């Protein structure tokens, strides 16, 4: 029997806006499977996004959804989570939204270790505005605003999250669809700020400018460059050149923010 995705999709809200070949739908299905596997209650789940292609995801999901302003998802979500720590708060967005205009909010959400899960769909480009380079566009790659090759160095989102203090960081790809729900479920189950970076594809505005002949080409590349963290342990630096590590990259236990604030309330005498 086919998986029942529709039970968590808002009636009448499909079709989505994503282009044929875009991986965002694969991520959304992974998120739905993860939410199902954890029995997340719709009324008790809040999905928060910023602006961009990936940030349109909440509108399709049948739960509390908040489509905020560009880059501000983590800050809005922090307000929701502080007000209702009992809610499951999940953030979704793209690389430009999360690490350029929203970069400051992103690193501080990591630092606070507030119990939310941030799914970053990293397709290396600003898709919605037509393909401008983002903080993750590789050096010398082409975008509509880097016609001579990108002069900028790029962010590694997972490492950025680890460096900023996120206590759970995982990476998957849009090709490895069946892994996505497991990574997201583990991230949601983790107490603290968790980041799941999904390396995604944008055939429309990134692929065609960067010598990918087809969506299949882009997907094949995701398959080829992904190396599970366990397998990487046995590989040499040379063998790992040009590869990306996938799986759970970082997992530590640290005090969680809303619990720390509950202690503040207790110390102030406000918990009675």
């Amino acid at each position: 029997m086919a998986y029942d995705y529709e039970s968590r999709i808002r009636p009448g809200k499909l079709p989505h806006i994503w282009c044929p070949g875009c991986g965002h739908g694969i991520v959304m299905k992974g998120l739905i499977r993860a939410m199902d596997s954890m029995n997340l209650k719709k009324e008790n789940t809040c999905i928060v996004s910023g602006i961009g292609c990936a940030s349109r995801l909440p509108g399709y999901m049948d739960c509390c959804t908040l489509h905020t302003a560009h880059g501000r998802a983590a800050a809005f979500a922090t307000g929701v989570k502080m007000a209702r720590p009992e809610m499951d708060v999940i953030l979704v967005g793209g690389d430009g939204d999360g690490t350029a205009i929203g970069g400051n909010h992103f690193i501080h959400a990591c630092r606070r270790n507030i119990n939310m899960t941030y799914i970053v769909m990293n397709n290396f480009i600003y898709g919605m505005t037509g393909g401008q380079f983002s903080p993750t566009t590789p050096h010398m790659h082409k975008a509509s605003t880097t016609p001579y090759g990108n002069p900028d160095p790029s962010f590694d989102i997972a490492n950025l999250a680890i460096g900023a203090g996120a206590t759970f960081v995982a990476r998957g790809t849009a090709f490895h669809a069946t892994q996505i729900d497991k990574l997201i479920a583990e991230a949601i189950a983790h107490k603290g700020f968790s980041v799941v970076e999904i390396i995604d594809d944008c055939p429309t505005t990134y692929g065609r400018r960067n010598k990918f002949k087809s969506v299949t080409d882009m997907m094949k590349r995701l398959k080829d460059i992904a190396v599970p963290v366990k397998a990487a342990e046995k590989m040499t630096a040379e063998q790992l050149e040009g590869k990306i590590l996938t799986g759970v990259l970082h997992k530590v236990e640290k005090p969680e923010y809303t619990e720390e604030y509950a202690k503040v309330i207790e110390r102030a005498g406000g918990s009675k």
Partner: protein
Amino acid sequence: MSKKVAFLQGNEAAAHGAIYAGCKFFGGYPITPSTEVAEVMSVELPKIGGKFIQMEDEIAAIATLLGASLAGMKPLTSTSGPGLSLMQELIGYGCIAEIPCVIFNVMRGGPSTGMPTGPSQSDVMCARWGTHGDHATIALMPASVQECYDMTVQAFNLAETYRMPVHVLPDEIIAHMRERIEFREPGELEVVDRAAPTVPPSEYKPYDTSFGDVPPLAAFGSGYKFHVTGLNKLPDGFPTTKAEYVQAEEERQIRKVMANADKIIDVEEYQLDDAEVCVIAYGSTSRSARYAVNAAREQGVKAGMLRLKTFWPFADKHVKALADKVKGFIVPEMNLGMCSIEVERCAQGKAPILTIQRVDGEPITPEQILEKIKEVK
């Protein structure tokens, strides 16, 4: 039982007013000359189980207000000019998505870093027009420490009543001076909570105008699930570009305030009955103006004052009526003509307008205003 009395700063009083109003959330970023509001909130909120958070910047601060408000809490932030500039993006979000919150903005010199410790009244237009797009604005102008308390309560009531961000705009003098203040007894001031939905979750739409120009707002996490966006939206909260919806929604969001302008607008008419010269003042400047009006009367000049307790919506009707009656207006303000341009608009040339405009970080003195009063022929 005697009332609790204290000797407080305007900033401290505002924080206590917020608590009285039922505020349970504060998100902020330190900035002179408003920081004491945050400091008091960080002490008081956890005592009542409320939440205080210091964010990475003012954009994040107001974002937390909007998130917390959607989750059912009454939220406050405090800031000053540069912070207000940063907040403009999400003040617009609060307007279009119709989310109650209160912004206590202490006015210091500007533009930019300006004069962080000097008083000013130059954010009144920033509060009105700072965010892009058409929108209504409500802004209250305390002129005493007691009013910092009372008007913060009133600001919450207005934010909750009209489902929108509301400004309180003290100048630095009002925010930092100390005066005797009475804490209000429970029930002494009205405390308004946003209208809750009367329909079950399955029928709820966050912008259902069949309930009037201010539709009830449910809270995330209370059993209701709905969508909120900064895009133009349909009654169910989902985006639309349909011309008829967009036009009607934009107009409603302004109408919900302007149709109630007479209820919202609050002025003090001081010695105006027989006045031939009318001083229009607000904030600390109105204190100098009151002194000047008294002094003028002692010297036989029939002066009076229209004190603006709300700056937005502007007191058009009051100024228009006075323009038919007085020989002249005096508009003293700590900016280069932000109120006087509104007075000009309302007076329509029927009475001359003399201005006193200081942006040098010094208050406007009673003597300056008295001299101007005497210039009116």
